[in-house]
């Protein structure tokens, strides 16, 4: 009986708590005027310790200089941000400043969840980012997110193995033919020239496909048509040839993720790896102290172009303080701020000013020079305007590419699957 009473008391306390527990949403008169004192919630997805610290410093500096527009840092997670935002947009409780990436916000833009920032962003910010990158966050001349950091696919090399094989990689770019030749040269005595984590191959193939002017899609939204021809199939064809004709790619690595191939890279199992440039951060943290590595010049087919999928800062369309939120975003886009977060996450800032600042701070060491150079040719890809691309990627392209890279189908079958599959998912 005593226990039952205790339990009832606990319930009573809970009910009292419920009565007291108010929603922590900002109360606001909804005017959004710039003179009222407001507190903005900024959900940041910064991951590396250094980036979290850099982002918090930006927030602290802003708060010190702007007593009327205070920003509260809220830590989010890349893993769950999409589901979280879907619900928050529906319920009208999204953070005032949203950190995401352009590929993810495309759907939110189409559904009208994001505010147009173009009236609020300064000309300085607009001029600092290239048109190709602005295109990834714009629609009908409106800007729905400020692009902050980007990744590119780079070739990382084991310097000792390169030296041993007598290979030097210099110049502005590394052609795909050179990559294949170097990989062949490095393949000997049970070691492979290249380890390539292509467990999820679609993003890599579509991004690097731009090297050969691969478009994959023609048109936008639901009206887009799949265009799969020679340029689009060039990258998978070359990877396949290296893996099964030259035997210079470790076939096991093709079934692994980008992070999974790193231990083999440190152990000298492969002379090179191709991965997102951010793995450099991981290499610095976990590679043996004696391990010597370098980033090679950007890969080149007919060009060095790759798709830009920048991280973004956006404001909900139903936000109560759009103007103030945009002011903070504008501040975040300043060269020094972008350089600080870019350096922490080992990602490429979208503005030339920030890239110059990183170049100056690092002296181009640890592969920064080539990494920054690989950011010069990042631009919007056709697939980024296609509404059902995520569905096509998961249901059609990924399994079809996995099959092809496992040598289970031929190139013609791959092309047919990619093309016909679009008709199946885009209904």
């Amino acid at each position: 009986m005593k226990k039952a009473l205790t339990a009832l008391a606990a319930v009573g306390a809970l009910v009292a708590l419920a009565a007291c527990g108010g929603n922590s949403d900002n109360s606001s008169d909804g005017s959004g005027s710039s003179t009222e004192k407001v507190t903005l919630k900024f959900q940041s997805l910064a991951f590396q310790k250094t980036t979290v610290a850099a982002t918090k410093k930006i927030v602290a500096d802003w708060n010190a200089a702007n007593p009327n527009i205070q920003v509260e840092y809220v830590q989010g997670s890349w893993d769950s941000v999409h589901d979280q935002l879907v619900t928050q947009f529906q319920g009208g409780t999204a953070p005032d400043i949203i950190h995401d990436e352009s590929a993810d916000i495309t759907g939110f833009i189409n559904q009208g969840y994001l505010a147009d920032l173009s009236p609020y962003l300064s000309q300085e910010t607009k001029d600092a980012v290239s048109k190709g990158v602005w295109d990834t966050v714009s629609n009908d001349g409106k800007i729905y997110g400020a692009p902050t950091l980007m990744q590119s696919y780079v070739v990382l090399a084991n310097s000792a193995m390169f030296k041993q094989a007598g290979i030097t990689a210099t110049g502005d770019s590394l052609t795909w033919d050179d990559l294949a030749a170097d990989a062949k040269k490095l393949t000997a005595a049970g070691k492979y020239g290249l380890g390539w984590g292509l467990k999820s191959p679609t993003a890599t193939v579509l991004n690097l496909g731009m090297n050969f002017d691969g478009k994959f899609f023609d048109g936008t939204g639901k009206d887009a048509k799949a265009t799969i021809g020679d340029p689009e199939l060039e990258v998978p064809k070359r990877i396949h040839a290296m893996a099964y004709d030259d035997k210079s790619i470790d076939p096991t690595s093709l079934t692994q993720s980008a992070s999974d191939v790193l231990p083999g890279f440190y152990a000298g199992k492969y002379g090179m790896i191709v991965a997102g440039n951010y793995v450099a951060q991981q290499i610095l943290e976990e590679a043996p102290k004696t391990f010597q590595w370098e980033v090679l010049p950007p890969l080149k087919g007919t060009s060095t172009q790759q798709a830009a999928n920048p991280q973004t800062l956006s404001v909900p369309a139903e936000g109560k303080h759009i103007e103030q939120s945009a002011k903070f975003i504008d501040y975040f886009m300043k060269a020094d701020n972008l350089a600080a977060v870019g350096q922490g996450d080992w990602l490429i800032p979208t503005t030339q000013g920030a890239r110059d600042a990183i170049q100056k701070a690092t002296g181009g060491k640890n592969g920064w020079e080539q990494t920054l150079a690989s950011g010069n040719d990042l631009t919007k890809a056709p697939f980024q305007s296609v509404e059902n691309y995520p569905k096509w990627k998961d249901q059609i392209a990924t399994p079809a590419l996995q099959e092809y890279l496992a040598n289970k189908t031929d190139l013609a079958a791959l092309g047919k699957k990619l093309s016909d599959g679009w008709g199946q998912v885009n209904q």
Partner: protein
Amino acid sequence: MRTRPGTRVLQYLAVLAYLIFLGFPLVWLISSSLKSPQEFASINPSILPKHVDFSNYTDALNEQGLVRGLGNSLQISIYSTILVLIVALPVSYALARFRSRLRPLTNGWILVSQVFPVILIVIPLFMILRPLHLTNTIPGVVIVYMVWSLPFALWMLQGYVAAVPRELEEAASVDGASRVRTIVSIVMPLLRPGLIATAMFTFISAWNEFFFALVLLQDPQLKTLPLVLARFVGAEGQVQFGPLAAASVLATVPSLVFFAFLQRRLTSGLLSGAVKG
């Protein structure tokens, strides 16, 4: 009947194999939590760390508000468990003991309610809780967890209530005990294993739940443990394995204590000999 020595040895071997099978993930987790990033990246990983490194624990505790997350999860899980038991006990008793046409319908509905995917109900739920000012609050999450766990708890407890012989209640009734007195003094003590099993299930459900907490809790001060653990995973599949392993070890401790405390009370056989057949 005596067991042969050979059979006894085989029994011990089977138990040992089972213990190793169950214990290995925990050993691996603890070992991983003590490894340096260099050891993690080794192409030949070892079961035990070559150099014990506690920096993962300091990282886990300092970086992501792990202790606060533990506290929030503990609070939510305990409140949910208590509430579920308070509601489920009388309802499951009524469902088990009173025959009516509504019973199969009720039981059917309880089962059907379990097949809805979380993603389907989370937005309507959010819309209901928001005007009540229960989003972004601990009580809001507790209510959701309670509603979410209640059907299965009812289902579980019904079976336990049905296993209590009616003759015991009839005997109490003959002695002049009221129905409430009978439930409190006769049925509840006999239901203790069932109540503990239900409490365990409810506690685990709340302790591990991620999605509702993700959607309903935005205040960093209110984040639960699964949300804190998710922060060790970055974009493009990057994972801070060391701190994540350390955080997972720390996250396991409260539930281990909870179960160690409860499982001793999870004894059956209370009813043996209660009624002579």
